[in-house]
Structure formats: C-alpha cells, structure tokens
C-alpha cells in the first residue's frame, strides 16, 4: 500500500520538474488514483470507497431520484469499477448485502447464486438469495444507465472499447446514446470507429430521419459490412422507388464484397492447413526426395518434436512465450539425433532396398510410439499457446485472420527458406546433392558419402522435429500424432514431385487450399477422401508428380 503511494509521489516529482503547467492536473490525477487504490483496499473493511462512498451507498437506498444523481456522480468520476457496476445494474445483477450494504455482482450457475464483491475478491456462494437484495431501477434510470455507459465507453481512450460500444449500439440502438455518437463523430480519430459510427447514424436516418437524407445514408451503408446495416437496407421501404432501388443496389454491392472476403478467408484457411501439410512433408522431402529413403518413422520424429515442446514448456512454465522459441532448436537437436541414430543403426544397412527400409522404419515408428506411451502416458498432452499467438487480426466485420494460423504460414515459409539456403548455399547441401545424383562419382571426388547420408537424414529428421513444434500448438500432443500425418506427408511429397523441395511447398499449399475449398459443400472427411483419390489418380497420369526432376538425376 505504502509502496503505491510512494510511487505516485515519485511520479509527481518528475512531472513537477518537467512540466510545471501540468502540476495541478497531475496532482488531481494522482490524488484520484491514490484514493481509488486506497479505497479498493479499504473496501474490504467498510462498505465502499471513501470519496464516492456516499454515491455507492445511495445506490442501495430506495429513492430513484437520488440514485440517478449517484449514477451521474459515479460516471463523472469514473473509477475502475464503473462500467462493471453500471452494466450489472442495467441487467439487474447488482445486489447489496442487507446488513453491510456492500455491493455485489450476482451470477447464477448450477442452481447456485454467486455473489462476488465489486470492490475486492470476496465471493459468496448461496443456494438462495437470502441476505441480499437487488438494486432496483426504473425506466428512467435504465435510460440514464445506457446513456452513461455509452458515454463512458465511447469516450474511452482505447479504440477497441469505443468500437465495441458502437457495435453494441448497432444491435440495440438508443436515442440518448446516438446523441453522444453524433457529437463525437467529428472528433473521432480512429478510422474504423468512425466508419462504424457513420453506419450507425445512417441506419438511424433510414428509420427516423428526413427522406431527403436517405440517399446519402444508403450510400454510407453501402460501405458497411455489418449485419445491422444489411438488415436496415433489406427492411427499407420508401414511397420513392428510386431510393428502394438504390437500397437494393447497396445490398448487392455488400454481398459481392462479402463473398470476396469469404474467398480470402477460405484461401487463408487453406494456406494455413497447407502450411501444416507442407511443414510435415518438408523433412520427408529431404529423406525421401533427396536421399530416396522411405522413412515411415517420419511422423514419429514430428511427435518427438512435439513432445520436446511439451517438455521444454514444463521446464519453464513461467515463460510460455519464450519456451516456444527455445523448443525450436531443442526439437531440431532431439529429433535430429534420433534420426541420425536410426540412420546409423538401421537404414545404413538397407540402402538400395527401399521396400525393406519401409518395413524397418515402420518398426521403428511402432517402437517410438510405444516408448512415448510408456514415458509420458498414452493420454494427450496440451502445449499452451503463448500470448502473442492468440487472438486475431480483425480486418473488418466479416474477415478475421487468426494469429496462430498466420504464424504457422510464416513459420512454414521460414523453415523452407532456411532449408533451401542450406541445400543451395552450404557445402553440406552441395555434397548432399552430389551424393544423391551420383554416389560413386561423389565418393571419387572425396565426399564422405556415409557421413553425408547420416547428416542429411539428421537434417530431415530435425526439420520433422521443428514441424512437430508447429503441430504441438495446433493439435493435442499424443502418441498417435505422427501416424495421422504420415500418409498426408507422403502424398504431398509424391504429388509435388520427388526430389523437388519447391514442389513439396506448392503441393502442400495447393492441397490445403483445395481441401478448404471443398469443405463447405463436401464436409471435412469427404474433402479429404476426394483429395486422396485425386492424388491417386494424378499419380497414374504423372507418376513423377507436379514438378518432375529432369535429366540424369531423375533416374537415380
């Protein structure tokens, strides 16, 4: 408590030195903040904050006129609880204890009444409402509450809160609030909020305004995408046929834009799904595409990456956001070493016998699955999504692009870039390509081909591990995680053209988009089946995939 006061004073001192003019204001602000902070604490012992104590107390009394004054006083001071209290009051959820006169927010659930104190953390659960009484309001107060709430929210510093307030009004318009909007629209700085306000006012004009303004209002609504605007246009009737035609035109224009945005949204979903597919397939594109090794344990290497993420996050529960960044190199190293072990232990002995490699690595995949089941239990684990990955970028009313999908697309592209850089720019990449094209010649040139094999396989496995980090954020982490991706990954690699990294990317993204385009009318499962059948047929037509390798390397 004293610490807070101390900090306030320190703030004041700095302000004093820098801007003398603001001293008075700062003092006032500091005072209000300090008293609020003090009051919040004090609320635990007495019935309410001291400065506004009387106003809060008045709410528990019977006189509506006094209540109205109290509401106005509170709205003017605007302590942190204001919005919550006014909302609760409006919805009839504001109660007070009969004995102590303290204010509570009441919510119902599971047949219980939950009274949570407005000013501190006190929570009372009761089967009945006994001992508490509702803060009663009448129609006058209701109007006042709405108006105050709208005013408070519309005057909020945060553009998001203002936008939410306007959207709220779009759903349930209110004359008093509209008046406030009218007065604020000219000074509104945020474009989005301004548009929403304009739409709100235009709807009001269509309903009640002068007919000469209607044409302009329709033109304004034409730019809007909100359902309220469309409803207003749909139900618009006017003696003037010209105006009705304009309204119809506006609806058409809105619908056209909406379908355009939905195409963007579908493509975006498709790209994000495709990125997941491509990410899962990249590692395979190296082991299968470049080395020609069928690694059925590829999915399990992704699973290892996902479990590495889980372990890293368990080790550093305080830093969820950072843990993901740590998990990426960790997963690369862990999955990569497992991959090298598999290559040295098993695959090395089976070069030139692809079908046997397939079976042996399948055996490895079973062992890895069971190992994870024994170590971590067969239950699914969840990896927490860090703060910076949740939420969405709200482009407009109908289009919202979620951040985690956005990140997965970027992540996929980044991994791809890195891989292509390794393959094209480093000496390891050069040697890998040399060995894959002509092993004997490469050996004759002094390339240690078995060492290159091990490193290449390790690279592919490590990238599978990184893909696992990405997957862990999207789905549950469980022993079957890998199994569900292995067939898809192979399909992507074969479809894109074996040995062609870029082909893998294009194939993954393309299949993702195709899947999402079909989903609305076919359903998720049928879409997937159709994609599988398409690939099966496609391979018949072009056995070497979309982008076949040409020249001598193709026959290798």
């Amino acid at each position, binding site marked *: 408590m004293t610490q807070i006061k101390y900090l306030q004073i320190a703030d004041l001192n700095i302000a004093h030195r820098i801007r003398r003019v603001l001293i008075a204001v700062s003092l006032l602000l500091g005072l209000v903040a300090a008293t609020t902070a003090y009051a919040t604490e004090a609320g635990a012992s007495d019935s309410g904050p001291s400065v506004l104590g009387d106003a809060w107390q008045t709410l528990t009394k019977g006189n509506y006129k006094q209540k109205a004054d109290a509401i106005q006083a509170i709205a003017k001071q605007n302590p942190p609880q204001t919005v919550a209290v006014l909302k609760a009051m409006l919805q009839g959820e504001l109660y007070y204890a009969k004995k102590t006169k303290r204010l509570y927010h009441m919510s119902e659930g599971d047949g219980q009444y939950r009274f949570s104190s407005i000013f501190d953390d006190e929570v009372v659960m009761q089967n009945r409402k006994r001992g508490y009484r509702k803060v009663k309001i009448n129609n006058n107060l209701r109007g006042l509450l709405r108006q105050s709430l709208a005013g408070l929210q519309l005057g909020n510093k945060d553009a998001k809160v203002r936008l939410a307030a306007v959207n709220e009004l779009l759903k349930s318009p209110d004359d008093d609030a509209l008046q406030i909007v009218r007065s604020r629209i000219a000074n509104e700085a945020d474009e989005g909020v301004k548009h929403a306000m304009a739409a709100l006012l235009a709807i009001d004009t269509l309903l009640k305004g002068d007919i000469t303004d209607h044409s302009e209002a329709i033109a304004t609504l034409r730019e809007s995408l909100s359902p309220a605007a469309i409803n207003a246009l749909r139900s618009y009737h006017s003696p003037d046929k010209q105006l009705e035609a304009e309204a119809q035109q506006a609806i058409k224009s809105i619908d056209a834009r909406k379908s355009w945005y939905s195409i963007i949204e579908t493509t975006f979903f498709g790209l994000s799904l495709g990125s997941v597919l491509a990410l899962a397939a990249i590692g395979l594109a190296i082991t299968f595409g470049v080395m020609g090794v069928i690694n059925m344990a590829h999915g399990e290497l992704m699973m290892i990456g996902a479990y590495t993420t889980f372990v890293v996050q368990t080790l550093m529960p305080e830093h969820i956001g950072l843990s993901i960044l740590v998990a990426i190199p960790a997963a690369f190293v862990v999955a990569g070493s497992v991959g090298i072990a598999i290559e040295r232990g098993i695959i090395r002995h089976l070069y030139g016998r692809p079908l046997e490699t397939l079976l042996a690595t399948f055996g490895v995949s079973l062992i890895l699955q069971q190992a994870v089941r024994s170590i971590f239990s067969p239950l699914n684990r969840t990896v927490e999504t860090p703060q910076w990955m949740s939420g969405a970028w709200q482009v407009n009313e109908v289009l919202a692009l979620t951040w985690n999908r956005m990140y997965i697309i970027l992540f996929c592209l980044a991994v791809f870039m890195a891989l292509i850089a390794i393959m094209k720019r480093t000496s390891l990449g050069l040697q890998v390509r040399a060995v894959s094209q002509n092993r004997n010649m490469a050996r004759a040139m002094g390339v240690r081909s078995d060492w290159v094999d091990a490193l290449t396989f390790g690279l592919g496995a490590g990238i599978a591990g990184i893909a696992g980090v990405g997957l862990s954020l999207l789905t549950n982490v469980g022993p079957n995680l890998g199994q569900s991706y292995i067939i898809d990954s192979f399909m992507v690699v074969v479809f894109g053209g074996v040995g062609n990294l870029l082909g893998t990317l294009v194939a993954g993204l393309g299949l993702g988009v195709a899947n999402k385009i079909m989903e609305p009318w076919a359903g998720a499962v049928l879409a997937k089946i159709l994609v599988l*059948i398409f690939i099966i047929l496609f391979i018949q037509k072009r056995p070497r995939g979309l982008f076949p390798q040409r020249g001598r390397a193709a026959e290798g």
Partner: protein
Amino acid sequence: MTTSRFGLIQNDRAGRWFLGCLLLVGLLVPVLNLGVPEDSAFHFSTYSVTLLGKYLTYALLAIAADLVWGYLGILSLGHAAFFSLGGYAMGMYLMRQIGDRGVYGDPVLPDFMVFLNWHELPWFWQGFDMFWFAMLMVLVVPGLLAYAFGFLAFRSRVSGVYLSIITQALTYALMLAFFRNEMGFGGNNGLTDFKDLLGFSLREDSTRIALFMASALALGLGYLACRYIVGSRLGLACIAIRDAESRTRFIGYRVENVKLWVFTFSAMLAGIAGALYVPQVGIINPSEFSPLNSIELIIWVAVGGRATLYGAVIGALLVNYSKSYLTAALPDIWLFALGALFVLVTMYLPKGIAGLAKRREASA
C-alpha cells in the same frame, strides 16, 4: 511331367507337410472340441477353435499378400482393404439375416439405418439377403477395385515404393469413407450383432466348428491355387517381372497384364479371407481398413519368409499367436515386440523362418 496324385505339390515337400498338418488340424480340432468331454485335458474349447479359425483366415490373407509381394514384387500396403471389403460383403449378408430380430425390429432395415432415420434400403444393399449374391460380391467387389486400381497403376508403370504408398492411401481413403455414417455401412460401429448364417445360429458350437473347417478348407484350396499359379508359365513370368521388369517387357511379355491378373486374383483371395473372418469374429468395422493392418500383414509374410507361400502361413500364425498372448499378458510390450520384429527380420532375417529352414537343409 508325371501326373501323380500330388501333381501340383509333388516337388513341394514343405507344401505337402503344410497341407498334411492343415488336414490333421482341420479334422482333429473338431473331434477334440465335440467328441472329448469338457473336463478332459484334451478338450479344445470353442473359444480356441474360433481363435484358430481367425488365424487361418489371416493365413489366407497372408498367402494372398505373399503371392503379389513374394512372386510379383509388388509391396501392397492396401491388402487389408480387400480383406475388409470381402468382410463387409459378408457382414451385409449377415445383417440382412437378422431380419426383425434387431433392436428396432424392422423386418428389412438394419438397426443403424433405423437409427439414422432412413426409410428404405439403399440400392447397394439390395440382393444381399441372398447368400449366393453376397458370396459373389465377396469376390467381385475386391476384385473390381483391384482391377480398376491395378489397371490404372500398372498401365502408367507406377511401381516400387510409389505403388506401396498409393495402395496405402487407397486403404486410408476407404477407411475414412467407411467411417462416415452417410456411406450406409454403419459408420464408426460397423456391422455387428449377427444372428445366423444360412439358418445356423452363430452362437452354436457346431456352426463355429463348421466355420473353422471352412476356413481350413479355404486356406488349403487357396494355397493350392497359388501354388498352381506360381508353378505355371504365368508364375514364371511373375518371377521374371519381379527380378527384371524392363527385361521381361523387352522380351515381349505384357507386364501390366500379368501384374493386373495376379493382383486381382490376390485381392479376391483376400476378400474370401475377410468373408470367413467376419462371422467368426462377429464384427466388421472401418478400423479393419487402417493402414497399420496392411503393414502388419506384410510383417507376417516377412517373418515367415516371402516367396514360399507356406512361410506366409507360418508367419501369420506365429505373429498373431504372439499378439494374442502379449496384448493380454504384457500389453505395453506388444508394440515394442512388433516394432523390433519389423527391424530385426528385415535386417537379419530377409528370408524369414522358411529361409532358416532352407539354409539348414542346404548345409545338412
């Protein structure tokens, strides 16, 4: 070629042994089950009969897979699909046999259709109330799928690993499809709750014995048919294709035709195995299509020894027996054991158990 009584298997010592054993088991087990009183140490319980019958259908499936993998060099990772399709055809017949004894008592519609609020039988369920038609479908449906798939794949010369992967995709797609309720095959739950087959109750011991003997008979006949193919000119062409596909083509053989017919035959054999499997197990559901099953089946063949036919039988019996034992006794160990089996057999025992026997024979 002299025509003795064993014409087909006169040069096939192991085959004679295998058929002899099969005959012995096929006759002895029913006697031990029905003739020996239950408290005797020699009594063979009905549960074990059914279990053994199930293994025999697996063995038939393994022979089918060995025919294409061992002799033709096609590693099909989708043979479980043909097996399951045969099983579903049988299951549909058994469903229709339930009649009005189902939970909802509808005389025509199976329970799950009543549950889904369907009012009439879909067209593809018509005719399955007749046994002969259902048996025809057991052959035709897997055969047709294999023919269509093979026609496309072999003509465009998809081979090796690519073929393995797309056969896997095929069975995966079928699994997803059969999981859908809209497909009309009972969705997730599949077909179950069967009552009787040709009027004989499936709960009766005698029916179970008959099914067991039918499985043994089918296995024996399947073996002979495969042995016949392998010994014929077609079989020689198969081996030639396996070892040098291009050369065989240049000599003038129609490689894709050989592959297509043998593949289709193998699929039909798998279908028969599935049809015998379902009444013994009492259920068929989409998880039978799972790619894991197809790969597991390959390991049976690998363990027993590919390109021997009888090796496939040994492998199927051995692996499945250990599976039944381990999943009950030490459930955590089973996947480790199976995985290790995959690795060890491919690395150290490429010719399987049959190869071991042959090696000893050669050194003796």
